[in-house]
Each structure stands twice: as structure tokens, then as C-alpha cells.
């Protein structure tokens, strides 16, 4: 297990390091950056949904909170974006911790409905509070600065995104194989069993919720500064669905699956022209079909097949 982790992980790092050689134009670099930044949020959501089994269809709320949080701090309060990203992360973490308590008392569908409501409310706030957020049209965002140096060039953003992604993956992979990770996956498998073994189920769910929110926030903040723009669409239900579908398709509880799911569902639509109109149908279809026929998701299923072939 540990060898597999090291080998695949190092392979991933190498692949990400070498990828820019293949990305011949700015468009491809842009797509890669988007995939990587989104993947950070998806890896976080995977911890909540895949590990702990708490289905959230409102996670875009946290991505947008991070994006707007950092944007507002940087624009209205003139704070250095690097600081504003961190402050936003802490702020959202506290917010997540506070609302986690009541929300996670709910089980199954009730919880999912609550996350839906959360997403809708955040979306509403972003649209309505025009003075702070620029309303439905969004607002521009200053770039990340280190002293006099502004991170604007696509290639620079590539490295920022790639390194943040690597760190996120590392954290998630470590968690999977740790006592805390097993506690989370255990309470997904059987909450009753986890409880009688001493797992404080409520506390673990809350912690998973907060951690996944922080991942989403970082993803959102970085995206905001990369795009130099934020809009309420970032908190839309559609966006939440995309994130959830990426987790489901890639593989629940699989970190690599989260990355694969994100890559597939971000690039495929780019390849299919005129996709915009069919987006919802497509995502809905993927969700249904994956859950019905490939419930473990792509990466774990493929891993299983490979394992079985090896056993022969």
C-alpha cells in the first residue's frame, strides 16, 4: 500500500512537472490551471463525500466564499492578496465550523438538502449585496503580488496551481491511510459500528466538513486571483453539481480519482463543441449512470481490475 502511494505520487509529480512541455499554447495552459485549481476543491469535497459519506450539493458555496472573501479583502480593504487568501481560509473555516454543528446533526438526504440550501443562500447573498460583491455582474480582482512582482503570466500560475495541487493530494493521501481517515471512512461504512468503537461521529463529521471547506476556499481564492475576476456563478447550483459529479465519477474516497474526475469533466466539455446547452443533461446522466453501474467510480474500479489481473 505504501509503495503504491509513493510510486503513483512521484509519478504524478513528475507528470505535472513535465506537462508544460506539452502545453504548446496559452489556451492549453489555461485549461490545465483550471483543472488543477478545481481539483483542489474536489479533493476537499472527496474527503467529505467519499471518505465520510456526507453528500454535499452546495460545496460551490465554499469555493465562492473563498473567491469573494479574498477578492473583497484585497479590493475593498487593500490587503495583500497572499494575506487575504489566508484570512479568507481562516474565516471560512470558522464559518464552516459554526454551521457544521446544526447541519451535521441531519442524516442522509436531510443533510444533502441542507447543503443545497446553503449553496442557494450564499448565491443569493453574493447577488444581492451589490456594494460588497458587485452584484450579479461580479467584480474584478487584483493579482497576487510578492513585493513588486505580480503573478500574472500563465506559466507562473501553472506552477502555483501545480504545487498547491501536489500539497493537497499529499494531505489527502496521508489522511486516507491514517487513523483519522479510517475513522471517517468507518463512519461512512457503518456509523453504528464506528460509534461502538469509540469514534466521536459528530466531531469527525464536523472536522471533515471544515477541512473540505478549507480546500474549497483555497481553490476559490486562487481561482479568483488567477481569473482576476469573480462572479456569483461561482456559487451556483450547477457548479456544486459539477464538483459533486467529479467526485462521484472519479471515485469516492480516491484522491487520484478526484483528480481524474476533475480532468475528465473539465476537458471533455471543451472538446464537445456546443456543449453548454447540454451540460446539465450530461452531468445528470453521468451521476445516475456512475452510481448505478460503477458505484466505486472510475479510478477504484480500474484499480480493482488491475489487481485482479495481477492476482492471476
Amino acid at each position, binding site marked *: 500500500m505504501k509503495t503504491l502511494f509513493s510510486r503513483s505520487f512521484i509519478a504524478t509529480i513528475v507528470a505535472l512537472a513535465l506537462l508544460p512541455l506539452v502545453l504548446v499554447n496559452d489556451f492549453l495552459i489555461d485549461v490545465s490551471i483550471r483543472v488543477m485549481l478545481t481539483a483542489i476543491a474536489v479533493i476537499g469535497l472527496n474527503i467529505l463525500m467519499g471518505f465520510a459519506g456526507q453528500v454535499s450539493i452546495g460545496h460551490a458555496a465554499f469555493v465562492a466564499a473563498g473567491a469573494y472573501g479574498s477578492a473583497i479583502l484585497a479590493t475593498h480593504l487593500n490587503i495583500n492578496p497572499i494575506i487575504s487568501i489566508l484570512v479568507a481560509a481562516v474565516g471560512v473555516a470558522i464559518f464552516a465550523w459554526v454551521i457544521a454543528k446544526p447541519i451535521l446533526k441531519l442524516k442522509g438526504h436531510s443533510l444533502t438538502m441542507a447543503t443545497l440550501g446553503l449553496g442557494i443562500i450564499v448565491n443569493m447573498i453574493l447577488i*444581492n449585496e451589490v456594494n460588497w460583491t458587485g452584484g450579479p455582474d461580479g467584480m474584478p480582482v487584483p493579482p497576487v503580488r510578492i513585493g513588486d512582482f505580480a503573478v500574472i503570466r500563465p506559466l507562473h500560475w501553472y506552477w502555483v496551481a501545480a504545487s498547491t495541487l501536489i500539497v493537497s493530494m499529499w494531505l489527502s493521501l496521508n489522511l486516507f491511510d491514517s487513523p483519522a481517515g479510517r475513522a471517517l471512512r468507518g463512519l461512512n461504512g457503518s456509523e*453504528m459500528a464506528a460509534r461502538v468503537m469509540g469514534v466521536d461521529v459528530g466531531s469527525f463529521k464536523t472536522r471533515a466538513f471544515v477541512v473540505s471547506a478549507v480546500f474549497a476556499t483555497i481553490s476559490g481564492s486562487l481561482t479568483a486571483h488567477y481569473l482576476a475576476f469573480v462572479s456569483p456563478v461561482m456559487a451556483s447550483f450547477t457548479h456544486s453539481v459539477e464538483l459533486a459529479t467529479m467526485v462521484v465519477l472519479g471515485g469516492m474516497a480516491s484522491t487520484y480519482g478526484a483528480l481524474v474526475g476533475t480532468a475528465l469533466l473539465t476537458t471533455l466539455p471543451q472538446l464537445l463543441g456546443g456543449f453548454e446547452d447540454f451540460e446539465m443533461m450530461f452531468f*445528470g446522466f453521468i451521476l445516475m449512470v456512475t452510481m448505478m453501474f460503477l458505484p466505486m467510480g472510475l479510478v477504484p474500479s480500474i484499480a480493482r481490475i488491475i489487481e485482479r489481473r495481477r492476482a492471476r
Partner: protein
Amino acid sequence: MSDFAQFVFSGLTTGSIYALVALGFILIYNASGVINFAQGDFLMLSGMICAALLGARFPFLLAIIVAVLLTVVSGLVLYRLAIKPAGDTTVVSLIIITIGASIFIQGAVQVVLGKNQHTLPSFSGHKSIEILGAYVLPQSLWVLGVGIVIVALFGAFFKLTLTGKAMLAVAANKLAAQAVGIPVHRILLLSFGMSALLGGVAGVVSAPITTTVYDIGLMLGMKGFVAATLGGLGSGVGAIVGGLLVGLFEALVAGYISSAYKDAMPFVLIIVILLVMPEGLFGKKQSDRV
């Protein structure tokens, strides 16, 4: 005082719609344990299809009937193609499948019928009637009236017909019902069909007031779910009371505090309710059977 009466009537009208959505939820939930995330979309479907048919010069009554029928068919198809094949799978799986179904339906409507809002003509004109100082749309009375009739019909169905009782049996204990020879799958199919019927009728009746658009099912579904949970997720009476309460609460908040965030109110309400009274108004205390 007339302001208050106005808010109350408006609240009761939307509340009736939420109550019908809530009833649809618990119909399926009681029979199969599944929360059908596509419940709100049934209302959307009938409204949108009816509007489209009217656009194609169908006579009003025919458009309504066809729209409701097509909605019922979609409910049956949903069960047959998405829920039944999933078999005895985890709660997480079922949640995601019905979410997927909901999104798929929304997407399909978006593609076939467009993103625009549509409205249906009121059944009996738009001259407001004055009741207790409030101006009430005749359509509101239709909503309330149809709601009462449906509830009465369903109540009679469960109490008086054999099929209705069979459905209650399946809800109480699926295994036992199977053992006595009740065709569980057909009952589940029926529950989806009835739930879609409920949604379909509610959709055409409410569309003249709320207008309809491809993603209206989302909000309706969520508020209906809040109503169902408030009522105890199992009781028909609870669903109705829950729906009316949510509608009233929303109207009063919109009227007296702020209308911008009125859609957020049900969410806040459900959090508070679940903290204070987790089993809802009429629900039973849950004990996990291990």
C-alpha cells in the same frame, strides 16, 4: 390589518403548493425510503409542458391533461430506469441517483423547451376577489381548492381501496408485505406514479401564479422537503401542516422584514426546527434498529 390578511392569503397559497410537494415526498419516502430529489421537477415538468402545448395552440384543457399525463409517465420511467435497477443499494447511492435524475430532467427541459420563463393563463380570469380586506387572485382559490380535493382523494384512496392499503403495508414493513404476496415493485412503481401525478397537478395549478422555468423545481423541491421534514417525514397531515406553515412563514418574513432573502427563510427554519424538534411536528422518535 388588510396587509396582514394579504400576507396570510399569499402565504396559504404558496403554502398549499409546498404542501403538495411535501405530500409527494412522503408518498415515495414512506413506500421506499427514498427521498426523491426530482420531486419539485414534477411540478416544473407539467407547467413547462403545458406552456409549450399552449404555445402550439392546444386547447387549454387538453394541454393540462397531456402535461399531467406526461409528468406521470416521467415519474414511472424514473422509478423503472433509475431506482429499481439500483436495487438494495446504499443511501448515499440513492441520493446521488435521484439528484442526477433531477439534474437530467432539468437539463432536458432546458434543451427541449428553452431557458425562458413561461406563464400559464389563470383558470378563471385575473380579477382579484376581496376577502377580509385582502385581494386574492382567483387562481389562489384554485390552488387551495385543488389541494383540498387531492388530499381528500388520496386520503380516501389509502383508507378505502385495497391498493391503498397495500401501499401502507409496504410502507410499514416491506419484507412482511412481500411475504403476504403484495407485489412490492408494482406498489413502488405506483407510488412514484402517484407522486408524479400530485406534482403534475400542483404544477399546472400553480404555474399561473408562480410562472414556471426549467429550474424552478429546485427551490420548490427544497421548500417542499423542509415542509415534509417539519411535518415529521412520514405523516400526510404533517406534510400539509408543514407546507402551510412554511408558506405562511415565508410570506410574513417577506412582507414584514425583507423580500430579498425570503427564499432563504425555509432553510433557516429547518435548521432551527431540526435543532429543537428533530422528529418534526408529527413524527415519531427515531430509534436505530440494529
